[in-house]
């Protein structure tokens, strides 16, 4: 389980997250969606959890089952790359892939990192059988086999998004934080992108934390909902809240009733 404990981050006068406490992965492979209006602190929360930002106060804690008891580990000070090795992986709202590499090279680079091979200077980058097998599987899972030789920057946006996520899965995450995986994707393709991610995360029982604006997708796929508003957790619970809670509609749609 991944826990944010009273995380606070201020940018000048603005308190982007105001002592946010929330837990992800209460059950194995839980799908949590973070929703909220613009400026609610969603991305800041993900940045704090993954180490892109340092909190002004509060802690990031990982709970792990060990010999029948739960062990807490404070990772607030841990460097992002170390968090990745500890199973905490993220994607960005804007696609971050290695633009001049092919699709396969992108996934391979991530897989090499996961297999602790990146310090090898004498072997060939494509000469590791175990890595190549992982890459084959991932390309198949994300239906990228047909375009594995294409340079990343030439791909259509939807494929770039999938490549980005495929690279995250190459890191064998325990927790995967996805910042708007469907942003910029054509409406009719959004379902496909989310469906592909859900399939992959279910197969590996990865806990996913997804920032999403499309409420139809949230309703369909969320196990649990975390609503942020003005840097605080406004509601937390079943996705049915979207239908039943009038305050929630007011906050999300910005309408006064």
């Amino acid at each position: 389980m991944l826990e944010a404990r009273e995380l606070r981050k201020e940018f000048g006068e603005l308190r982007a997250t105001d002592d946010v406490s929330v837990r992800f992965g209460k059950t194995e492979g839980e799908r949590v969606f973070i929703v909220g209006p613009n400026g609610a602190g969603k991305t800041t929360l993900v940045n704090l959890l993954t180490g892109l930002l340092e909190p002004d106060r509060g802690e990031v804690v990982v709970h792990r089952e060990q010999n029948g008891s739960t062990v807490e580990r404070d990772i607030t000070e841990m460097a992002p790359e170390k968090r990745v090795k500890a199973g905490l992986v993220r994607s960005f709202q804007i696609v971050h892939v290695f633009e001049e590499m092919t699709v396969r090279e992108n996934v391979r680079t991530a897989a090499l990192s996961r297999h602790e091979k990146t310090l090898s200077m004498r072997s060939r980058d494509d000469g590791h059988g175990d890595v190549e097998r992982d890459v084959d599987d991932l390309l198949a899972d994300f239906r990228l086999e047909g375009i594995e030789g294409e340079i990343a920057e030439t791909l259509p946006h939807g494929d770039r998004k999938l490549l980005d996520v495929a690279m995250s899965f190459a890191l064998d995450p325990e927790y995967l934080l996805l910042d708007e995986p469907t942003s910029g994707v054509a409406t009719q393709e959004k379902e496909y992108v989310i469906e592909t991610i859900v399939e992959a995360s279910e197969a590996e029982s990865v806990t996913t934390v997804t920032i999403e604006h499309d409420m139809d997708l949230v309703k369909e796929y969320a196990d649990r909902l975390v609503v942020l508003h003005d840097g605080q957790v406004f509601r937390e619970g079943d996705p049915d809240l979207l239908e039943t809670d009038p305050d929630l509609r007011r906050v999300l749609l910005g309408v006064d009733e």
Partner: protein
Amino acid sequence: MSRFPLVEDRDGQTVVRIPLTRGLGLTPLQTVFAFLGLVGLFALPFLAGLVGLSWERLFRGILFGLAAVGLNLLLRHTELVSFGHAAFFGGGAYGVAVLAAHYNVSEGLLLLLGAVIVGTTLAVVIGYFVAGYVDIYFALLTLAFNQVLFATVFRSGFFNYNDGLQVRIGGDRPTLFFLEWTTLGYDLVLYYTTIVLMLVMLLAMWKLINSPFGRALDAIGQDRTRARFIGIPVEKYVWLSFTISGLYGAFAGGVYALLRLHVQPEPTLYVFVSGEILFMAILGGFTTLVGPLIGGIILVYLLEAARFWVEYYHALTGLVLLAIVFFMPKGIVGSLPDFNAWVAGRVREPGRLQEDVRSATAAVREGVDRATTTVRIIVFGVK
């Protein structure tokens, strides 16, 4: 399985490669070039005189070019522009000079080892401080460190100020392999030792840039944030590649000192030298492994020979740089594949040559038109 020619499948493309080392091979055309290059390198001391070139000058070009190969590890892969690589070249050169002049070390190979240790240590120290920076900050920091070193050496009696140090032990040149040589013998033994070591270094660099580590450096260059978030310790890897990069410069500088037998700050340590090393990589083609080496040979020759041809030889090198950036951004070696394709295309359809001439004239005419319009606007204002 036959060794020649080897057909291999890489990322869905079938290519013919002549294997050179485990897992790496050259295309047939590259093999021809590599063979010619090797023959050229080994015959250089004898060939150069025949065609009226100075072998010693070419040798120096090779040394600066090797430093540029090192610099190119940063430039091409981590996409960091270092303006301070003379620090390692000069560091290596002064390593040799100080050991010879102050500590009476007389064996050339030991001096060279000293050069590599001194230059690489400098790279470790400087790299530690610059690894976290990118873009202009990285460039300026490397330049600043370079300038600090230069000013220190320039002002220090230990390094004998601007006059520099002799690489002589009691008036004698160093031994090589613990033997004393005649002037020509010394230069030849030094040259062939260097060439053999350089080939090993090129092969090592080639393996490195095709290794997982090389791919990690590419990742850092293309998207630092993403590299970090796939678990690559970015600063540590930049630091390591910076050190390796400096090692190449240190070795080259050490050989330079052994060749010249006299080390001065200006030709080895000055920031202009850093700029030249950078230019060599771009001139030869920084997207290739051996491009910087070719660039080094050409630039050193150009810089020294041009002063006999034209009055404003510094302007000439500037013009060459402009021409490269405008017309050949991939550099000389980097443009070879394009040039090849162009020649092949014209051999197939000679008619298209006319088109080329026509489009070139059109481009020139358009350029002149635009220039005259601009001048007219500057002089007479907009109508």
